[in-house]
């Protein structure tokens, strides 16, 4: 059977206890959780129409109704009625990339958004269930290890056995002469800093070419976003606290972000953690660069003779509504044949790399990225351009047998600006 309860050491002992013998905080935490989510849960439960189903990347490859926004909301109603508890439901919530497609496709968002200020919040619900699980001692084995290693190294173990840490977090920038500190700080996520180092190198050199002054952090830690996504909220907040203190200590005013996942952490999680104390401006590099191209500060001139399509990263397109600028940038590059697919159609596309899915269930990530690459190959392209380092690893793996190269938009732009990027695209 595919759906056992959460594994790991703690949960089995907890599962065996009758509900009244659970540690008091499990009962309390569960009831607080249900109180917080009851209305949202009934809002979906009383609709139950499943308009969200076919856009869900996990659903598309598993066709398993247990792992749908409908079920995710209904489970909360069942908890409210005493039919299910956190141990029953925790493992199901692994099966979500937190892409946000279901929220957009839900009539309750589509039709009520502006007037009632309403939005279906499946992603937040998934995060809340994962958090409740961790808080009550239910762990998914891979996530547990991942977060322990992250905690020990202050960075995610993106290179597997090979260590990552403070001593190497700025190695990607070798030879680029980037200062430490300043008004604008470039934040580089773990995947880009250690695995796909060509991305931050491209970004840094594009900004330098545009004359944009920026520096690196004194001591950068993981943004904490992945921990938050997997339910390790306390750890996420500790990491966030470190980064915020570090920015404040160096007098930073703006944080330049190249990774959509960090963009979510800094624009959604950090303000929730710190309130008014978090008064830094968060700037998406893609938007800055698009503006430089518009104003003529950057002009891509080197023709790139490739047939491409663009992968809308879920966190930019579905969660932040950023889809125009990447297309603007790609259209400014000479030589490209651009077989675009509109951003609404791409609500149902995903790389499978997000929300910790690739860590706990890599086989599902592979199916999802395979399906995404298949869409690209139907367009007869040789290259899929993305704008999210976390998508690029699974997409590259899926692209290889199809002869589709996966390139980051910053890498491609840098090339067209005549920059020799350097770094690694992850092949080790």
């Amino acid at each position, binding site marked *: *059977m595919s759906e056992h309860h959460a594994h790991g050491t703690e949960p089995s002992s907890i599962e065996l206890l009758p509900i009244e013998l659970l540690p008091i905080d499990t009962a309390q935490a569960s009831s607080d959780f249900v109180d917080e989510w009851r209305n949202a849960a009934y809002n979906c439960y*009383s609709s139950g*129409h499943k308009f969200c189903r*076919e856009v869900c990347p996990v659903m598309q490859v598993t066709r398993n109704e247990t792992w749908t926004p409908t079920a995710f909301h209904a489970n909360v109603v069942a908890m409210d009625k005493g039919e299910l508890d956190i141990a029953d439901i925790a493992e199901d919530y692994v099966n979500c990339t937190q892409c946000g497609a279901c929220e957009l496709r839900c009539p309750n968002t589509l039709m009520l958004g502006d007037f009632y200020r309403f939005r279906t919040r499946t992603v937040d619900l998934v995060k809340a269930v994962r958090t409740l699980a961790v808080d009550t001692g239910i762990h998914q084995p891979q996530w547990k290890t991942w977060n322990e290693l992250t905690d020990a190294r202050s960075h995610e173990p993106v290179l597997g056995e090979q260590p990552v840490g403070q001593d190497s977090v700025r190695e990607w920038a070798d030879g680029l002469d980037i200062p430490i500190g300043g008004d604008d700080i470039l934040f580089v996520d773990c995947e880009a800093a250690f695995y796909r180092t060509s991305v931050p190198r491209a970004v840094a050199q594009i900004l330098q070419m545009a004359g944009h002054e920026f520096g690196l952090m004194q001591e950068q830690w993981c943004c904490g976003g992945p921990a938050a996504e997997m339910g390790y909220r306390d750890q996420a907040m500790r990491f966030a606290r470190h980064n915020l203190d570090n920015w404040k200590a160096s007098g930073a005013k703006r944080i330049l972000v190249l990774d959509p996942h960090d963009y979510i952490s800094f624009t959604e999680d950090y303000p929730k953690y710190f309130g008014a104390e978090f008064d830094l401006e968060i700037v998406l590099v893609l938007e800055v660069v698009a503006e430089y191209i518009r104003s003529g500060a950057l002009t891509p001139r080197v023709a790139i003779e490739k047939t491409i399509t663009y992968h809308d990263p879920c966190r930019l397109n579905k969660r932040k509504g950023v889809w125009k600028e990447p297309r603007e940038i790609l259209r400014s590059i000479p030589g490209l044949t651009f077989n675009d697919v509109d951003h609404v159609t791409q609500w149902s596309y995903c790389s499978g790399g997000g929300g910790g899915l690739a860590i706990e269930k890599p086989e599902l990530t592979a199916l999802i990225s395979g399906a995404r690459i298949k869409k690209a190959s139907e367009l007869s392209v040789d290259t899929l351009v993305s704008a999210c380092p976390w998508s690029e690893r699974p997409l590259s793996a899926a692209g290889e047998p199809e002869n589709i190269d996966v390139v980051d938009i910053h890498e491609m732009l840098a090339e067209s600006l005549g920059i020799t990027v350097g770094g690694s695209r992850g092949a080790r």
Partner: protein
Amino acid sequence: MTAVLEASIVEQLVAAIAPVLGEANVLTSKTARYSRARVPAPFPVHRWAERVPDLVVLPGSTEEVAHVVRVANEFGVPIVPRDGGTGLTDGAVPERRGIVVDVKRMNLIHEIDLENRTATVGVGISMLKLNEVLAQHGLIYPDNPASYPCSLVGGRIGTSGWSLIGSRYGHSRDLVLSFDMVTPTGDIIFVGDGGGRKISKSSSGYQLKHLFMGHQGTLGIATTATLKLYPKAEAEFSAFWAFDDYDVAYKAVGALARAGIATFAGAVLFDEKKVEYLRRDDEAYIPQPESVKALVCSVGYGNSDEVAAGGRRMMRIARDLGARYMGDEISQGDWASRHDRYATPVHGRTLSGQVALMSWHCEDAAINYTDLPAVTREWHAIVEKLRRKHDVFDDWGMFAYTSSDTGVDYLTEIDIGIWEEKLDDTTWAAFVDAKREIAAVSLKYGGSISACHGSCREGEVDLVPQELGGGYDVMLAVKRALDPNNIMNPGKYGLDRAYDNEGDRR
């Protein structure tokens, strides 16, 4: 209430099924079972646990479905086919628990025949996804229910569904040419019009296709279907008109439907209560002044020149009856959002006007044109009485949609808001009584209880023998003959009476 199966029997079922379907496709977790106990039709939350299945299986082929059905016969355990799980008559709800056969994994497109204009698909596919692929060939499968993004081909077969543009392209029964299916005893058969997979009209033998559509999973499980394709329409015409008076709007919808316009795909009449309800929905609907008492919408599809000519004629018919055209923006926008108009919960109101998160219940009778005004009046009176008695219900107004290109009958829909969280045994019983009364009105006027969803739910199901007369006895005989062990979706349509105590193992 059916008892939960003993754990040892579930284990034996798993042991018999998993080697063929694969372990990953046999689910016993609580969440897997709870999430397949429900459909969108409101039901008291406190009774959820009564209908939770013992086991869920996700077969990947016709042979695998047949294997599961044979195992179920061997153990005498009920089988419930489930596809999209959007059906509104509880068809996919395991009322006697047992094994839910969830066919969503069977969603491949096996063939697109461009010359004969057919597609052969697994029944787990959605029309929306199929049409994304067909669009590359300029084709469309025009089965277009309001649940277009979420219902699936197998469920369309199981319900013999109704399509919004059925007056032009026909409904599921016209658009599904043939299918493979597994009978209640686990045999694999093929049904269509005659013998060929791609035949749209045959006189050979009994017309079994009709029998095996709309049976709500009580006569077997369809697995692969061959569908009829059309050229994707070059043009769409949609117009909305406002009226100060229901009677005039009623005349207009009739005139439009009877006009014999070849591109005519459907017309809809919104009654006064529906217009009132839509005023709560400022986002989706541009609010109309109080003077507006009814609306009519009419649509056409086809080649550009034909649609333009048909559209002009529709505009003239409506204008001559004093209709006020509501402009292109509302007309096109509103029709385009027809599949998204289901942000219903927040539109619930108690008698005092308090907002309550309500679920949507939809009655869907088939009524002749001449009887629409009387049925509309009587249905509203029933719901009003219910509301006054129990302040957890709300009247969300009525639609009447053409079902055919001649305007003979209309899918007649009253939408009822139900505060599902508050449903207790008393209010549920009152609701069931109201549904029975609503069905009785439909029959009194010579209509049918259901045009789209089926009539399996508590209340209306009591009147099905009355609706079908001697035909219901034939249903019983067919059920008994094909499903000797009463395995397939038992409890639906009162079909238990086909069995004496010995035959009924449950």
